């Protein structure tokens, strides 16, 4: 019997090359914005990392005009094979600067370094590589012999995967011949601005990519700007609805990737130990700040006790703390506001009579942290079964028959993802056909690949990102 404590194994924060101030990127240059500067904070320590200038309405106008000029004069006329060279170059530069990007991402977002290092940054590079390959083959994508781009894309992305979301948005837009004005989230602007540096390094023609930090008002200004032909938004359903309302009748093409309340369905013939891994990965990956998180566990009643015992043991081994420690499994909640939202919904779960179990893991005193939490005895009518918590909180419900599982899984206004766990192949196909969700994972969860289209049903949004289907969002078809 022993007590093996892992010594701290911090990644050096110097690798992030953190600068005291960051500026917005317009028309190929870093310029001072005329909005009020914002301070971005490390959510694991609450220290201010840097001051970031933000865009005013006139800056948005300048950026959109720069993007329009770049579109008209250079990018839309350039042969696909030439565009591909720039995009490949960006992909390679992301790989070259991967450690810097990973550490900076973890500092700014709070996510564990092992995730930014092993998931966010490699996936971002993969999206650029994948779409670079499409740039000269668009005639073979199934949208006619010479599909045309849309023009200027206004893109607004969330704080949960700052660099990866930027890549998901920028790579297909550029590959299809569009130019881009992108607004990163208010709390996580830094890696998008390093990506802007990479665009400079790649000698991307000025104006093809513009990055405007700022809060919701900048996003609103951008998507409503008359010079924007296409709006791509990833974020909350609430804001997605606002944008759709504002843009109705404008003729702008839209894609929306919004919230979710995904079900992970575990049948009694599932590979239990791997199902436990999938559940953990589904809800505790990235502190549960994942729109496709498996936040509802639907488990067949006959195995519920055994599965929950295994799950609690596994969850209690998750290490919560310093985002830069290589052994941290669950990092910091991105902001105080998000932490308060999680606390509020957890209190609602308690009040509605669900059984709360919280991992006994030690949690740092400073910074925004929330210990992994599992609610059992959750009923469909409870808020924690219906509302997106966007935190490390799992709601466990049970079912008796496959039909009941499908009915409960689909009983949500969302429909972004679902997980099916069974060793029986025919049951996987049967259940997958009935899931109203854009992504259905079988015996795995939260796996991302640029070749696989990602997107939702109903209030989880519309349009697809990735794969051949994702190109449609940036082509005039």
């Amino acid at each position: 019997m022993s007590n093996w404590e892992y010594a701290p194994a911090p990644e050096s924060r110097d690798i992030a090359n953190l600068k005291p101030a960051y500026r917005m990127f317009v028309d190929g240059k870093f310029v001072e914005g005329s909005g009020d500067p914002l301070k971005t904070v490390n959510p694991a320590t609450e220290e201010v990392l840097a001051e970031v200038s933000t865009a005013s309405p006139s800056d948005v106008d300048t950026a959109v005009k720069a993007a329009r000029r770049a579109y008209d004069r250079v990018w839309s006329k350039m042969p696909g094979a030439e565009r591909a060279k720039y995009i490949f170059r960006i992909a390679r530069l992301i790989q070259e600067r991967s450690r810097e990007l990973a550490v900076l991402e973890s500092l700014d977002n709070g996510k564990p370094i092992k995730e930014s290092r092993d998931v966010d940054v490699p996936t971002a590079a993969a999206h650029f590589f994948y779409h670079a390959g499409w740039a000269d083959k668009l005639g073979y994508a199934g949208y006619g012999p010479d599909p045309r781009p849309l023009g200027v894309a206004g893109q607004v992305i969330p704080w949960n995967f700052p660099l990866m979301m930027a890549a998901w948005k920028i790579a297909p837009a550029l590959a299809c011949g569009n130019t881009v004005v992108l607004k990163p989230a208010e709390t996580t602007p830094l890696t998008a601005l390093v990506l802007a540096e990479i665009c400079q390094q790649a000698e991307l023609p000025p104006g093809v990519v513009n990055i405007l930090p700022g809060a919701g008002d900048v996003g609103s200004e951008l998507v409503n700007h008359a010079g924007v032909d296409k709006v791509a938004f990833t974020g909350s359903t609430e804001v997605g609805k606002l944008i759709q309302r504002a843009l109705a009748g404008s003729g702008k093409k839209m894609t929306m990737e919004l919230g979710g309340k995904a079900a992970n369905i575990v049948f009694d013939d599932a590979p239990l130990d791997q199902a436990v891994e999938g559940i953990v990965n589904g809800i505790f990956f990235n502190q549960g700040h994942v729109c496709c998180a498996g936040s509802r566990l639907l488990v067949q009643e006959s195995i519920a006790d055994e599965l929950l015992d295994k799950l609690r043991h596994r969850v209690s081994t998750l290490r919560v703390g310093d985002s830069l420690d290589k052994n941290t499994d669950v990092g910091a909640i991105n902001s105080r506001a998000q932490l308060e939202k999680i606390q509020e919904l957890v209190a609602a779960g308690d009040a509605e009579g669900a059984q709360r179990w919280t991992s006994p893991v030690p949690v740092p005193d400073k910074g925004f942290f929330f210990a992994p939490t599992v609610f059992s005895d959750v009923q469909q009518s409870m808020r924690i079964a219906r509302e997106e918590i966007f935190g490390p909180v799992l709601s466990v419900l049970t079912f008796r028959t496959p039909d009941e599982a499908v009915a409960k899984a689909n009983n949500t206004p969302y429909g972004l993802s679902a997980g099916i766990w069974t060793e029986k192949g025919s049951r996987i196909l049967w259940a997958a056909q009935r899931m109203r969700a854009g992504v259905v994972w079988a015996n795995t969860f939260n796996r991302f690949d640029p070749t696989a289209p990602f997107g939702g049903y109903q209030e989880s949004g519309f349009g697809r990102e990735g794969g051949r289907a994702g190109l449609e969002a940036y082509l005039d078809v």
Partner: protein
Amino acid sequence: MSAPSQTELSEVTRDDASLRRFLHGLPGVDQVGVEQRAATLGTRSIKKASKMWAIDTAISMVDLTTLEGADTPGKVRTLAAKARRPDPEYADVPHVGAVCVYPDMVATAVAGVGDSGVGVASVATAFPSGRSNRAVKLADTAMAVEAGATEIDMVIDRGAFLSGRYGQVYDEIVAIKAACGGAHLKVILETGELSTYDNVRRASWLALLAGGDFIKTSTGKVSPAATLPVTHVMLQAVRDWRDRTGELRGVKPAGGIRTTKDAIRYLVAVHEVAGEEWLTPTLFRFGASSLLNDLLMQRRTQLEGHYSGPDYVTVD
């Protein structure tokens, strides 16, 4: 284990049909999932004091092994001396778990380790193939036990297992266990020949049901020998066994573990898959030979702050 959890374990072993029902009722193992989990857990970064602790613990878990046709009493004596005192310049290095030899070398090994506390493990039961009759396997075991072996590493009959004759495999383990007397029994599954993780899980349970004190991956004579995902499945089995019966049984990966880095990955798996109760030589062993010297070199690197090289550890 949905259906079997209601069944008494004594009922399970009543006959071939009940054994089959039980073993095939165990939850399946998803290959992609277990391999992904093993790879992810392999990225743990173990530094400073935790690394030093891991190195010493790993040394104490080594079953220092020589299983060659060319083994001689001289070779075994050298190994025993190394087992007692792995690093002549550092007296605080723990002795290894055991030396592991063929049955005819047991007496030499017993004399060699003396009263140091180092165990003497002997392979038996027509190692490594297990292709002989029960009488020969029992005689092989008895010979090792009489010569003073404290641990017996038997092999299961993989032919019988793969053709579904689970009762035969079970009976043989029970018989060998009886022949062991006070010696601990390690049951070698030879996972490289079982081919699927489902089979590894079933064979693990079969060995545990039959009374094996340890389940061991491999003979070291078949490739692949020990792998991390296979060891994960076996660690889950001993953990499930503890949850079910309250008894603690051990795991021994053997073959192919050569570096400190590898050993630490295994210890992390023991820690996080089975639990920290298993981080002791009574419940976890490494079947290895070259691993020990790498552990000693890394130990010196930790203490002296620089790498000293292979000439500063003894080549045995």
